[in-house]
């Protein structure tokens, strides 16, 4: 009984800041004002999102160039696909860099039980600073006439075009979201009981086998939540592509911002938001399903 009362502030918080805004978005997506300022129900927002009279060539992962086909899709579908492409690549790179990092960090943490881990601290420290400032710092570093290119110039190489392209955006995303991949994996890895690994070794498994059959499967929940924590913000960000993309990129986050701030079309903007939410919810659903299945395998039971 007491617990329930303690939960009231949280329920109120969620009602005001999560449920109400969601309902507002849904409301805006389905309504518009006519010329006399009267509110009416409409599906025009969703129709605009899927409008076939304003199309662009579809080119996910450069496939169209590679296979030589020309498929015209509604502009927002292309924007969503492009966002998905960059988010997927960033997530995979984060995982490839983040897993070994988490593994090494976990090993160190375990080796010096109880003491705070200096390396983990170093890893988290940049996160104390605002993401906007960190991204600006990359601009100053990697500009065509920035610090790195000037330095390379002394060595007689370059200048390289590091930013204002896919590479720049990917770099910004990986840099900003890497800790979100490392931390959950790290916290799962440190909790794996050393006795399990010792048991595997006693039973004759070499270190590769131990890793593949024991450590890695046990760390899957960490990987899944890491993917969740990186993929979702990477999919929806508009700050990083704006700064590191040289203003040339329209990802789904920018497209929604534009609808509200520039086109002043709340109906289409909200419809786009809903589309994005459905997309994100669906991918989360797939991930949790995968997580359940892997735990049903008996390893984590």
């Amino acid at each position, binding site marked *: 009984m007491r617990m329930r009362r303690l939960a009231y502030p949280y329920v109120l918080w969620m009602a005001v800041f999560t449920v109400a805004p969601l309902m507002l978005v849904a409301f805006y997506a389905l309504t518009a004002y006519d010329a006399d300022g009267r509110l009416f129900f409409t599906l025009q927002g969703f129709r605009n999102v899927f409008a076939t009279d*304003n199309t662009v060539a579809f080119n996910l992962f450069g496939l169209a160039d590679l296979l030589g086909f020309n498929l015209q899709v509604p502009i927002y579908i292309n924007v969503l696909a492009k966002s998905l492409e960059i988010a997927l690549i960033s997530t995979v790179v984060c995982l490839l860099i983040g897993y070994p990092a988490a593994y090494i960090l976990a090993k160190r943490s375990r080796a010096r039980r109880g003491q705070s881990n200096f390396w983990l601290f170093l890893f988290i420290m940049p996160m104390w600073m605002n993401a906007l400032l960190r991204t600006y710092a990359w601009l100053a570093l990697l500009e065509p*006439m920035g610090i790195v290119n000037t330095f390379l110039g002394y060595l007689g190489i370059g200048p390289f075009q590091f930013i204002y392209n896919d590479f720049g955006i990917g770099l910004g995303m990986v840099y900003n979201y890497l800790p979100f991949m490392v931390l959950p994996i790290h916290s799962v890895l440190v909790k794996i009981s050393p006795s399990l690994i010792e048991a595997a070794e006693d039973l004759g498994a070499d270190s590769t086998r131990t890793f593949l059959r024991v450590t890695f499967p046990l760390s899957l929940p960490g990987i899944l939540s890491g993917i969740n924590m990186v993929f979702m913000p990477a999919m929806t960000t508009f700050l990083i592509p704006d700064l590191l993309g*040289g*203003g040339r990129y*329209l990802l789904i986050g920018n497209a929604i911002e534009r609808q509200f701030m520039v086109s002043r079309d709340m109906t289409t903007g909200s419809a786009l938001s809903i589309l994005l939410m459905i997309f994100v919810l669906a991918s989360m659903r797939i991930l949790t399903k995968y997580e359940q299945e892997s735990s049903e395998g008996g390893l984590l039971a």
Partner: protein
Amino acid sequence: MKKVVLILLLLAVVVAATLSGCRSGDGKTILTVYNWGEYISRESDTIAWRGREYEIKDVIAEFEAAYPQYKVNYQTYDDNEKMYAKLDTESYDILVPSDYMVVRLIKEGRLQELDQSRLPNVKKYLDRRLDNLTYDSDQALSDKVSNYAVPYMYCTVGLLYNQEEITPINANDPTEVWDILFDPAMDSRIGMYSSMRESIGVALNYFGYSLNTLDSGELDQAKNLLIDQRKNVRPLVGIDELKDKYVSGELLAGVVWSGDHVVCQIRLEEAQEDPDKLQYVLPKGSNLSVDMLCVPQNAANPDGAHDFINFLYEPEIALINAVYVGYSTPHTEALKGLPAEIISNLSYYPDEETMQSLEIYYSSEAIDSTYDRIWQAILAN
């Protein structure tokens, strides 16, 4: 019961926040100014320009000293459309939209008529040529503009290029002038504004079409040109951040407002470099744009707004701003204080004939929505 208390508390906070908006702690009335970035002098400095020295002052501080009853809350934007988007939720006392946006705001009843009797400086010093421009296809509406808005600065849209790297362009034919923007050899060395009208306008002008066309064939051509440019030339897109990149040589050419070219030259002079390294050409049929001071219908402090406009038309203040901002001033007295090379340059201060060859952006529901649609498609590529 608790919920009621909570809601009341929340309401109290909201009401307090709104009320405190009009007065600052020391009993001064707040004047909220919403202006373009880098569009008013905010520093005390000496600027050397074409061999002349100018003493620059912080104009906002000067205003607060001259009118101690006001405290200025100064905010900036870099895009007419972004400014427009804020008007529903915020209350400003002074806005500085471009001509076509002024017309749109008048049409929508969002501006208040100015009390000309409170603007004696404007009456005395304004270059009346700017009042007689045609700001809308509807002449009656165009005539109304001067009742609602006072020109602050004006400029033309042209090509800036680095003549150390690019062969001089001696033409005013738009196709010849703009050609370099679409040359794949200039990969990543071109600058474009992120604003919709400037980008589409340049593409339309390149083909020799009107900047206000609604012909879908012409617009499609412009759209495809810009999409190809994004793919093959990969221009850098921005507003104020581009200026330093022209100065440093990172960008070799780009679309600029004439005022930005002047600012780049002043920055070169400051760095002890030859200002004429960066050249400016104005093609025929390009855009003339006038940014105007106006007062929104929902302004909290219209009195202060009138005082502010009048203050900006003090000859000394207008000169400081003209030097600092670099755009063309409509102030007949301040003009006399500027370097002779600047005033005699027809690209900055067009004569009657040049003015006739330029076009002003128009705004109508059809134009606004069509251009926005095209712009989205360009961005999505």
